[in-house]
């Protein structure tokens, strides 16, 4: 460690905040995964953003790298410093900056411990939903870095769904404020979304704004004991299949049960059981008994030996005990324990578990499974002894095979632990060269110097470290200067058969009069890619479109003349739909209304309700992003998109994400393209997360003076009552000004909905003038969003882009659309 640097760090952060003694640095050698040991060059423990900024600058001057580290509980080796890099620990940045209960948001420093935040929120009747198993120790900064999950993410979603704003210090010492004030990115790229899960490779997160949820009113927990783990896994699929949405579903397999029962943590599970399944429901008290009874019935039908139910908080803790203590118990029986992490579609669980058992047998290893079954997030734990080299080798091989098995089943290599150091070598299983190059490129936009947590997440670039992304390549790096080529629109149209293009009058007619040279209808991603490449060569501006319903969007038209509209209408198939997985993959040109009809048959839905949704296509919905009134319950568009096939402005086809709910393999580029309005690429296929359609959908319509209605809405908010949406519609009834209607939507099971309805009426304090039921309710809201939505959000959704985030956005635009073929960035 350079003494100059040590001195300047001491000057910046204080004498007790800098550790350079080699012996004292030993404690920072590993994180939660002890297989990797790398001693950092120094550790610095700043308290404020300004200290972080100055420390990062000082380190940059000395050409060293920075590794952000929270509590060091990660399980992928992400928080260890390679090559004597400096560890920047956030342990002292442990202040809860603000709790804004009325707007259900909180601002924290990154070193705040996850469980401490929820404890601080309890008096307000709120909580921060993601609950990784290490929540008593792990920090929110670490959660943001890893996009952490947890048992209760089945219903409430992982970290990225709850993070609404970030402050991040970049490697050049600049500070960007991304998102914030409770709103999602209304315009501009979802930089918050791409930073979440970036494992410290983009910068040091110094402040985090999170959304909060009301504490559930009631909880019901049950434990099914099964003879065979496959039966437990089938029960999981069945519970989801019948439309129930538990808060958590966790499986503990036989070997784990035996380890727990033989340890000091014995939880009273039968020692000869094949598996135990914990199912937990939370929410409005009224509906919970019915839901848990149905789930218990399913367990019975799937061959459960017995089903236990918790009647008190103590009993609930007892049922969970075997799950919560599993790792500790395994740690006790084994000299070493490798906690693996992978995700598969829920329906692939039984076959994957069989496959894992077979791999274990083949390598003569003992593997125990304890996992988030509801999300399909597996944690096979391999027990071994590090001192036995030959056995360690077998563990290595078995791990690789398990990864391949999961990817083959439609899953991914990590659901919540991250890639870090440990899984870089598996990244190629889920990402092709184009995707890896794109991820490298985005990383360089944030960290051009490559000094933020280097050597993590992405495998080394082919041909050494030299090829660090940069421009997206494409057919030619410059606009074509080729003499022999045909220039102009004609050259683009030449690529497609006659039936796939409209020109002149026909084009104008299709576009409803707006001026464009032509409309083309490619039929595959490859065709789109060819079009984009040709357009780049010929300097033809493109305008991505679906059905063309929202082409009037301001700023949508690319500059220059001779615009070609690329419509995805010919790509309209439902590529993949597995109701029990609650996921689907649809081609971009599929009409939303057709998609909804298909989902309706299986009693599922995708309740995004964004403006213009119903007249457009799947691709259009993804490209516009945003959120509808049901956001608090179902999330925004960005929370529903699991994977994308997209053609970038450089003409490359990227297949990003996947079709599993939890996926942290690499940087989350899906977030960048979602809501980018086609300025970065043309979406050709999207995988989305679905929800069971609630049994009851009703809308209470209240009418009265505007002030009175506002009061009612505020009272509903303050009551923390789980109404799905409350919208205010200004209207002049019978010519009287100043009146308004308040539409309160209630969704859920029969008992739950009835209870919420009664309480909502009491809270607003007047009788509703009308109650809409079922389809009537649904179409009422659909009409409302199509016309002029006024989502009820007291937080100011003002997204001011500062110069740093604007620079980042420009960088990303330049990366994916180097030839400016696509529309300008808003």
């Amino acid at each position, binding site marked *: 460690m350079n003494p100059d640097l040590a001195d300047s760090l001491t000057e910046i952060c204080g004498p*007790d905040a800098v550790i350079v003694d080699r*012996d004292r640095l*030993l*404690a920072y050698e590993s994180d*939660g995964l002890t297989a990797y040991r790398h001693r950092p060059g120094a550790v610095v423990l700043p308290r404020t953003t300004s200290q972080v900024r100055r420390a990062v600058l000082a380190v940059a001057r000395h050409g060293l790298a920075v590794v952000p580290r929270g509590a*060091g509980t990660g399980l992928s080796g992400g928080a260890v410093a390679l090559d004597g890099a400096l560890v920047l620990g956030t342990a002292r940045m*442990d202040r809860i900056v603000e709790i804004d209960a009325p707007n259900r948001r909180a601002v924290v420093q990154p070193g705040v411990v996850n469980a401490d935040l929820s404890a601080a929120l309890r008096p307000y009747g709120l909580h921060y939903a993601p609950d990784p198993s*290490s929540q008593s120790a792990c920090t929110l900064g670490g959660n943001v870095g890893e996009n952490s999950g947890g048992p209760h993410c089945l219903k409430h979603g992982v970290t990225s769904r709850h993070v609404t704003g970030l402050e991040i210090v970049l490697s050049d010492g600049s500070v960007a404020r991304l998102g914030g004030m409770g709103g999602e990115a209304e315009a501009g790229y979802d930089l918050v979304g791409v930073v979440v899960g970036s494992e410290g490779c983009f910068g040091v997160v110094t402040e985090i704004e999170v959304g909060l949820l009301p504490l559930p009113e009631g909880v019901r927990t049950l434990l099914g004991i099964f003879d065979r783990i496959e039966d437990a896994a089938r029960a999981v699929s069945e519970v989801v299949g019948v439309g129930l949405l538990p808060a958590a579903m966790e499986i503990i397999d036989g070997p784990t049960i035996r380890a727990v029962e033989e340890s000091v*943590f014995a939880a009273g599970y039968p020692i000869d059981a094949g598996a135990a399944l914990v199912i937990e429901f939370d929410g409005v008290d009224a509906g919970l008994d019915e839901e848990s009874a149905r789930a218990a019935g399913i367990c019975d039908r799937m061959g459960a030996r017995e089903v236990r139910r918790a009647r008190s908080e103590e009993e609930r803790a007892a049922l969970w005990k075997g799950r919560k203590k599993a790792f*500790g118990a395994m740690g006790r029986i084994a000299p070493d324990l490798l906690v693996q992490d992978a995700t598969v579609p829920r329906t692939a669980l039984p076959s994957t578990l069989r496959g894992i058992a077979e791999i274990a047998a083949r390598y003569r290893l003992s593997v125990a499974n304890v996992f988030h079954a509801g999300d399909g997030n597996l944690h096979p734990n391999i027990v071994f002894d590090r001192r036995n080299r030959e056995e360690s080798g077998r563990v290595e091989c078995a791990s690789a095979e398990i990864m391949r098995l999961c990817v083959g089943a439609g899953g991914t290599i990590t659901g919540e632990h991250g890639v870090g150091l440990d899984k870089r070598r598996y990244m190629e299983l889920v990402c092709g060269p184009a995707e890896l190059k794109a991820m490298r490129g985005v990383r360089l936009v944030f960290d051009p110097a490559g000094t933020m947590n280097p050597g993590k997440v992405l495998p080394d670039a082919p041909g050494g470290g030299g090829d660090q992304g940069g421009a997206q390549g494409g057919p030619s790096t410059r606009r074509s200067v080729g003499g022999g080529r045909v220039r102009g629109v004609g050259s683009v149209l030449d690529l497609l058969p006659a039936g796939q293009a409209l020109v002149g009058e026909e084009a104008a007619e299709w576009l409803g009069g707006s001026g464009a040279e032509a409309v083309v209808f490619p039929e595959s991603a490859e065709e789109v890619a060819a079009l984009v490449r040709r357009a780049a060569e010929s300097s033809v501006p493109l305008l991505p479109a679906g059905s063309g319903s929202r082409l009037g969007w301001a700023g949508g038209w690319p500059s220059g003349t001779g615009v070609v509209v690329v419509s995805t209408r010919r790509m309209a198939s439902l590529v993949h739909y597995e109701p029990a997985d609650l996921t689907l993959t649809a081609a971009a040109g599929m009409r939303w209304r057709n998609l909804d009809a298909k989902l309706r048959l299986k009693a599922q839905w995708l309740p995004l309700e964004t403006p213009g949704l119903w007249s457009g296509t799947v691709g259009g919905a993804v490209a516009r992003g945003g959120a509808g009134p049901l956001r608090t319950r179902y999330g925004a568009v960005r929370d529903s998109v699991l994977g994308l096939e997209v053609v970038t402005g450089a003409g490359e086809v990227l297949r990003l994400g996947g079709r599993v709910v939890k996926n942290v393999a690499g940087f989350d580029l899906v977030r960048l393209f979602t809501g980018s309005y086609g300025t970065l690429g043309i979406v050709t296929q999207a995988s989305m997360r679905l929800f069971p359609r609630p049994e009851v959908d009703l809308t209470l319509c209240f009418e009265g003076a505007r002030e009175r209605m506002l009061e009612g809405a505020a009272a509903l908010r303050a009551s923390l009552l789980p109404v799905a949406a409350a919208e205010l519609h200004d209207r002049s009834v019978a010519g009287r000004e100043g009146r308004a209607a308040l539409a309160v939507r209630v969704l859920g099971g029969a008992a739950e909905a009835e209870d919420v309805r009664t309480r909502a009426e009491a809270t607003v304090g007047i009788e509703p003038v009308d109650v809409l039921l079922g389809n009537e309710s649904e179409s009422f809201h659909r009409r409302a969003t199509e016309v002029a939505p006024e989502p009820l959000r007291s937080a100011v959704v003002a997204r001011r882009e500062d110069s740093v985030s604007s620079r980042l956005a420009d960088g990303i635009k330049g990366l994916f659309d180097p030839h400016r073929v696509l529309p300008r960035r808003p």
Partner: protein
Amino acid sequence: MKLSEDGLARALAEQDDALANCVHCGFCLPACPTYRRLGDEADSPRGRLYLMRAIVEGRLDAGSDAFETHISRCLGCRACEPACPAGVEYGRLLELARQVGGSVRPPPRISRLLLATFGTKWASRLAMLGARLLRASRIPDLLTWAVSRVRRRSGEESAIESESHWARQRSTARWRSLWLAFAMVSASAPPRRLFAKVRRRQVASDAAAAADLGRSRPRGTSTADDRPTVGVLAGCVQAGLFSRVNAATERVLTANGYRALRVRAQGCCGALHAHGGDLGRARALARRHIAAFEQAGVDFVASNASGCGAAMADYGSLLDDDDAIAESARDFAARVRDVSQLLAERGDRAGAPLPLRVTYDPPCHLLHAQGVAEAPLAVLQSIPELEVVPLADAAECCGGAGIYGLANPELGGWIGADKVHSALKTGAEAVVTGNPGCMMQIGAGLALAGSRVRTVHLVEMLDESYRLGGVYGDTQGPGAR
């Protein structure tokens, strides 16, 4: 020297499996008072275990600054043990680590002095006599008051939490040890004013009725002696400065149907030595202690000092290697109870009402090391009209930690200041706890902060209730002051 050093390192190496139980998950970090304040992972249980492992692996020198600093900075509060999913016996490993470290690099002079004093009967008695005389002179009271005035004027308390302040304090550490020692002696005085307040309040209420209540349910009056016998640990600090608590312990146990025995030959239990890593002396003291109680033949060994209780409950593992005594040590350890456990087992016997608002601070060696959480609260709740308000972060150490507060006045003071802060926030008139060390540390902290809130031993509280309630008969009990 070199030979024995290797031998000790081997002792730590024999713990390889115990060390390997630590899976490095980090769950202990937020439970650790030093990590919470310093944010340095080397000052966390996981980090300290890692350093121990590095010694075993030969990657770290037992005499290194790093090992000395971080191992000695540990309070030994063992709050990490309940947080550990793998059940690592951190306390035991820490003792061993301190022994290994101490063998190559002697601990600070003040620690050695204190351990030597308590390890020798006459020295300990002499020191305690001196402390009693000092206390009687009222000089510590005066000095504590003066320091509190100065500190208040310089606005010190408000800055106590900042880490730069902590760094500054290091230079004044020696002075702080001295004030603290005086304030601790001052805080060991009986809470006369507090109990006088209770009596004044009772004048208004119907004290006679309460007295009847106590008398109406006599217990343990039968002379046929089938009562379980209890040997009360006299202890060194307790016997020296808290003899009133020892006497009260005997009284309340007798009132609850136990036969309290005075075990004359007992000495220091060796807790301070074991926790400080002076395992040789700890074993010697433990042997003597076991022999004394064995001779007396008791059913239970009652402790009113949780540090001692925890050490005695660990005698089994402390003397595991000594075949001659291992069996008796295990037998002894099995008989050890905290006084609150014995009282709670008998159900609640009501004394007079104590119309006070108090808060309870569980001693670490009771809560974390012995896992006794409910019994003391049950005893407190059995006292009529005593309002027990919850203490924020109660489970966290007060920074006293045996001789830690004296040896590390700056960090111990920082941790203690937080405890004082949360105690004052409760608005309680007294802080009840179950260990003389905690009583003196918190009491000193309160006094230095200029507060008149007192620390009271749990048993004292119950004893006062019994005494006022006439449980001991009309003559205000045998130990009437």
